[in-house]
């Protein structure tokens, strides 16, 4: 056989499918590369001093004085428990830090899963997706690796709710999707900002719609099976830091450094929360009806409000200097607030009579260190209301 002729007759597997998938990615890269946001830069510079002035005015106003009265604990909650003996609600907490990833049970017992980071629970707590260097992996709750893929600079793996049939993750600035058993890994879009993608909750078998943020500050919701966009917001939302869907898939929360925006399932902005200071974290309650926001300022504060009522319904839950993250308990009754400078976790009850419980020495228990800049264990999720038997 002539080698040259044989070579010219070789076909690669699934050429047509590969071509269709590649076109989606390249088309996206092309659209996102078109000049779109250069005009926005000027007015952003104009708006910044206004925002600073508004924040200052709020701090000095009577409302600001009211805020100051919320500050009861600047160096941590007094009489905090010296170790985590139990969680106040069912479920398990996942944390990652310099000491690796830990799976913490409701009775306070903790299992180290290994030197992983950026972990996330599968919808029913059966598996954990996590990353390590250039590897993304699925683990069981005991830390056994179920599958592992090597891709460069991986981060932020997220399972599709409610079935876990898909996992989305970032590899550099590329958004990739892999089936829940580790097969069929492929790129979906490129030019992605370093923000965790968010699956829109749907039926077990899809449609698999995924929200992500691009480097030009655009929120895109795309069908991961067909590659077609469901909707795209106007670009220009710089420094998007978080995306989260409500449990019924009707609202998408988009956090920027100064605002929290609620988008409807069709891509319209239905509510805007502008707290007058940095927005640090935000999360929907497990039933999707309430929104918890952590905002910064002279003092950082945690507020909870009804999604349907918007910003006017926000009520204070807890405040302190140097708060970092929020996580809802699976039953929606408690909020876990991480407080690195105080080396504490604070549990705040948000349903029924208010109650605060705190645990100290968190960094030491989970291999981290007390640091406002990093190193304190990161909350990766609190799952699930009904814990699978045998775990």
């Amino acid at each position: 056989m002539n080698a040259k002729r044989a070579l010219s007759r070789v076909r690669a597997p699934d050429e047509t499918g590969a071509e269709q998938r590649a076109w989606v990615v390249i088309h996206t890269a092309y659209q996102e590369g078109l000049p779109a946001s250069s005009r926005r830069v000027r007015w952003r510079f104009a708006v910044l001093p206004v925002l600073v002035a508004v924040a200052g005015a709020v701090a000095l106003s009577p409302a600001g004085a009211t805020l100051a009265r919320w500050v009861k604990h600047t160096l941590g909650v007094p009489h905090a428990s010296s170790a985590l003996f139990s969680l106040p609600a069912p479920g398990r907490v996942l944390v990652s830090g310099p000491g690796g990833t830990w799976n913490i049970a409701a009775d306070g017992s903790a299992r180290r899963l290994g030197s992983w980071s950026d972990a996330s629970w599968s919808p029913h707590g059966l598996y954990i997706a996590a990353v390590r260097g250039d590897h993304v992996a699925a683990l069981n709750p005991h830390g056994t690796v179920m599958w592992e893929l090597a891709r460069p600079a991986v981060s932020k793996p997220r399972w599709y709710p409610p079935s876990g049939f898909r996992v989305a993750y970032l590899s550099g600035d590329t958004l990739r999707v892999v089936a829940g058993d580790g097969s069929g890994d492929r790129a979906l879009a490129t030019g992605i900002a370093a923000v965790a993608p968010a699956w829109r909750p749907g039926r077990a078998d899809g449609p698999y719609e995924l929200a992500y943020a691009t480097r030009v500050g655009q929120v895109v919701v795309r069908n991961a099976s067909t590659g077609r966009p469901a909707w795209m917001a106007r670009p220009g939302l710089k420094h998007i830091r978080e995306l989260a869907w409500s449990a019924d898939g009707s609202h998408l929360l988009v956090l920027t450094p100064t605002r929290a925006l609620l988008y409807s399932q069709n891509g319209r902005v239905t509510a805007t929360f502008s707290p007058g200071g940095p927005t640090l974290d935000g999360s929907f309650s497990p039933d999707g009806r309430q929104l918890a926001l952590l905002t910064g300022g002279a003092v950082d504060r945690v507020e909870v409000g009804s999604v349907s009522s918007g910003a006017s319904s926000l009520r204070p839950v807890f405040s302190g200097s140097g708060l970092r993250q929020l996580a809802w308990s699976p039953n929606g009754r408690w909020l876990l607030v991480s407080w690195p400078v105080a080396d504490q976790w604070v549990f705040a009850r948000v349903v029924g009579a208010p109650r605060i419980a705190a645990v100290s020495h968190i960094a030491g228990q989970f291999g981290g260190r007390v640091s406002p800049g990093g190193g304190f264990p990161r909350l990766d999720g609190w799952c699930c209301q009904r814990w699978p038997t045998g775990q």
Partner: protein
Amino acid sequence: MFPPAEPVPVAAEALAASGPLPRRGVRRVRGERALIRGALAGSEADLEELFRRFWPRAYRAAYLIVHDHAAAEDIAQEAFVRAVRHLDQFDRRRPFAPWLGAIVVNRAIDWARARAARRESVDRTLEPVAAPDAGGYSHEVLAALASLSPEHRAVVVLRYLLEYTPGEIAQALELPRGTVNSRLRRGLDALEHRLREGERA
């Protein structure tokens, strides 16, 4: 139970459909310069035409070097994304294919070199992702190519699949012309030897 995967394409089936890729309508053939100009001006149709014209060979070239269709898809995609992002820097007096091919082949060589250090899966009970199971000529050619180093494979693929001249290969891979010629000769000899052995068997 672990969540089942969506069916993934079976390589053998895909290889069986080894005819030319389906044409999308009958239209006047435009030169690549016009397509690049159109794409730079914002024409998605021109970009798509450019993509459809050059994708199959880019993907095949990557596949023949790395022998992993998922990696080949990634490599060809990344090369196209890079090309699209740098289209405005492309010298339109030169042909597009060698420019794209050089990106694909260099990435494929890097990937093949790094492969030994990577683990694709640690769970042996799971099926590999659509393991290539080529049949007929493809299987023999792939087996023969696998006996070559990534650098030799790249030279052979550039010459006989992408139809580069030895001078263009030397430029794309930043190699002396003599090295290209010797790798081509050795690569082709090895391929023909393996293919003859396969025929006798």
